């Protein structure tokens, strides 16, 4: 029973990892950019939620009304001002710019909020749970997070395949130059992709803030989990990303059952195992 319980919790935390990963997957799909600052943006969103909750007294989940649009605008500005000028043939420049952004975010948060770890109190939802069977209970909050990640991925799929913005994303991703000939403003399309990614980051940040303790140096680990979920699931496949997050979460849960020191290590080892056996991920996209 202990094992069944561990695996179920692993599946649920996989939803949070999928949220970390979805934004990463999205911008990689549109502009082949890997955002090294992604994890730090998630942590920055968590702090933003903290500030909003403290200032307005809103429930943490309701703070999304302010945090999500704000992060989207910041993401758009970051893309237009810092990243677009470096995007082209060379992948080194944009990578290094996001690396610089990551260092600035981490140390900026450290200056503003100190190194103390923080948490967002969300009231009764934190402890509420369903009792399934003896020894097995599912928390309401992890279920909410998992449901949110399914909804976010569903939403992203709809945007990608049902809207004109999604069409612009796909066209620019297929061939940026031809897309530009079709009067698509590449800079704006990239900006919108980063805005959308930052909106997902905001949701991930709020859930992170409620679910665990966070501090200014918590970003890189979130980036690595998100990245692993993307690769395990298969590049460019959003539902695969969810599956990747679940695989990672279960691997960590099983590792933790063996020994506490093995939790994160087990996730990394499964990542390398998938890389060795199925280099294109478990659910590679047809192309």
């Amino acid at each position, binding site marked *: 029973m202990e094992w069944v319980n561990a695996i179920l919790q692993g599946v649920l935390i996989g939803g949070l990892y999928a949220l970390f990963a979805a934004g990463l997957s999205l911008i990689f799909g549109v502009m082949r950019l890997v955002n090294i600052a992604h994890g730090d943006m998630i942590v920055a969103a968590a702090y933003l939620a903290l500030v909003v909750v403290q200032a307005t007294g809103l429930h943490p989940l309701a703070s999304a009304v302010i945090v999500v649009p704000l992060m989207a605008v910041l993401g758009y500005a970051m893309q237009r001002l810092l990243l677009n000028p470096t995007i082209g043939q060379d992948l080194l420049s944009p990578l290094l710019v996001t690396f610089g952004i990551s*260092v600035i975010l981490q140390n900026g948060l450290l200056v503003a909020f100190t190194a103390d770890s923080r948490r967002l109190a969300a009231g009764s939802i934190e402890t509420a749970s369903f009792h399934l069977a003896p020894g097995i209970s599912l928390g309401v909050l992890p279920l909410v997070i998992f449901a949110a990640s399914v909804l976010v991925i569903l939403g992203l799929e709809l945007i990608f395949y049902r809207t004109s913005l999604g069409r612009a994303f796909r066209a620019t991703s297929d061939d940026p130059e031809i897309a530009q000939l079709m009067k698509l403003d590449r800079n704006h399309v990239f900006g919108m992709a980063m805005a959308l990614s930052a909106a997902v980051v905001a949701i991930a940040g709020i859930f992170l803030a409620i679910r665990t303790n966070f501090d200014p140096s918590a970003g890189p680990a979130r980036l690595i989990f998100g990245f692993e979920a993307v690769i395990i699931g298969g590049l460019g496949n959003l539902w695969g990303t969810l599956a990747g997050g679940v695989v990672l979460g279960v691997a960590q849960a099983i590792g933790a059952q063996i020994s506490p*020191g093995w939790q994160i290590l087990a996730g990394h080892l499964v*990542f390398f195992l998938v890389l060795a056996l199925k280099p294109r991920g478990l659910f590679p996209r047809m192309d």
Partner: protein
Amino acid sequence: MAAAFQIERSTRTSRVTALVSLVLLVVLIAAPWWAGRANMRLLGEIYSFVALATLWNLMAGYAGLVSVGQQAFVGFGGYALFAFAMFLGVHPLVAVPLAGVAGALIALPIAPLLFRLQGAYFAIGTWVLAEVFRLSFAQVSSLGGGSGTSLPAGVVTGMAADRALREMAIYWTALAIAVVAVAYVIALLRSRAGLALTALRDSEIASESLGIDIWRTKLTVYVTVAGLTAMTGAMIFLQKLRISPDAAFSVNDWTAYVIFIAVIGGIGTIEGPIVGTILFFLLRETLADLGTTYLMVLGAVAILVMLRAPKGLWGWVSQRTGVTLVPVRRRVVFRD
């Protein structure tokens, strides 16, 4: 009939540079007689960063392998040194090159895995690898587990008769590693493999069609860089005499700083990492009092350089003046 042209590589400037470097090297070798203890330590640290930045630059600037996980090999080298010295009783100075060999050997099976990842995804893959190393070494209780361990006093005193001699030996080893790293990169770039690398960097598809074995060239670079990085890591922790998983596998210390150095100095040049290291230490010595803000300044400087002068300081200078101090390409010179 004699050919009307010849192929040359050295220029007047490069011959002068070689001479100046030689003189500078003699001066640096003599440092124990003119520099104080603190300055020797600082110089030793500078040498480590020259080596790390030069090696990182070879991978990123020439082979297109952007790694943000080089701390994997710095830490591995450090731990290998401690293990060799503590468990096998190897003399620490002998353990330094041995740690390098161990680093290259461990990189050999890892490279094929990482090479399945392209571009930026390769970058984060290397980071995951470094995390695997960090978490694994934290499990080894005979090396102090998560809290680390110090090099036993017996090992340290057994290195040389007294403290001054020991510091001199360590200083020269650090200098030797920096020289070996720079010399290796220059020699590699001037060789056949170097030509292949430059072609690879310019166009992977075109060079493959000319019969260049991309995979083997990248593997050679990755494995040799891993070995030399591990050797540098062994050196760094021989100077510190203490190691812990967090210090050994710190992404800030062994990769972020190194990337800043290469970016600010100029990626894809021999001179860049050296210019960058000097600049980095100047910044560090003047801004160290700012604490955390100093890191933000570094980040901002790196972004600014990337946006305004993507080839870095040295790239900017050499684009405007056409000066290359260490030429690796061949030029055709016509006789009249």
